[in-house]
């Protein structure tokens, strides 16, 4: 019904994952190349990951330095072996990624399948099978995307009060399982 939501999600999808469709790689696949977040070209629109030199070994999220306070994306050390999400020491405070077995091959993003998630935390995705949900499911965890609003047609004041918003583009009644 509201196609702009799909279009926006597709736009974000294409900007964030230039030339590379994102895939969720299960940690159980040992020979998969350790890179799900492709190197981001700083010239190409919004980027949510700092630019990574593509000549460096693939490494997006390196081990957090415990001396430096909270750090979720630390500088890339080119000498380190490919690693995206480092083994997390459970003693080191809050972690949003569950401990990874260091003997396992590098893995990036926890699997989309709820039953395979090592953290036991799985995103609640409506099973609508539409492209919005699929694109969201492929985005990096814990990233919020808020499109910039612009001033367009607005409701007449009585209608605005009735609908609970002045903006037709925000008039998205919750229908149990998603807003459409």
């Amino acid at each position, binding site marked *: 019904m509201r196609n702009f939501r799909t279009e926006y999600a597709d736009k974000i999808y294409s900007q964030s994952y230039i030339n590379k469709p994102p895939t969720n790689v299960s940690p159980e696949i040992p020979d998969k190349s350790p890179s799900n977040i492709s190197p981001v070209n700083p010239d190409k629109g919004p980027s949510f990951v700092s630019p990574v030199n593509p000549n460096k070994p693939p490494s997006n999220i390196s081990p957090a330095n415990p001396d430096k306070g909270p750090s979720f994306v630390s500088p890339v050390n080119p000498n380190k072996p490919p690693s995206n999400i480092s083994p997390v020491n459970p003693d080191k405070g809050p972690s949003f990624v569950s401990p990874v077995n260091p003997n396992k091959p590098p893995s990036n993003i926890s699997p989309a399948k709820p039953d395979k998630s090592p953290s036991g935390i799985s995103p609640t995705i409506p099973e609508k099978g539409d492209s919005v949900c699929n694109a969201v499911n492929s985005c990096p965890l814990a990233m919020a995307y808020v499109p910039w*609003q612009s*001033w367009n047609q*607005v409701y007449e*004041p*009585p209608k*605005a*009060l009735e609908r609970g*918003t*002045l*903006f037709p583009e925000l008039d998205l009644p919750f229908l149990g399982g998603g807003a459409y």
Partner: protein
Amino acid sequence: MNELLRRIQYLSFVLVEVNLYLDTHPTDMAALNYYHTYKALYNRALSEYTSQYGPLTPGTVESRNRWTWIDKPWPWEREA
């Protein structure tokens, strides 16, 4: 409900809406013009209401010889 009161309600609602929009778009002239247009309509409706029925809020008490806020009927008790 009193039609004037209803008008005040929806006008104040759209003022809050455009207020929130302007918080993040402070130089959006279309939104700012909208705000001033509807602020003027709101002020007019509010003073019209106050002159007919008395203060709608304590802040709109205008009488110099009596604190009319406590006078009945309360805004929500008025019919038609």
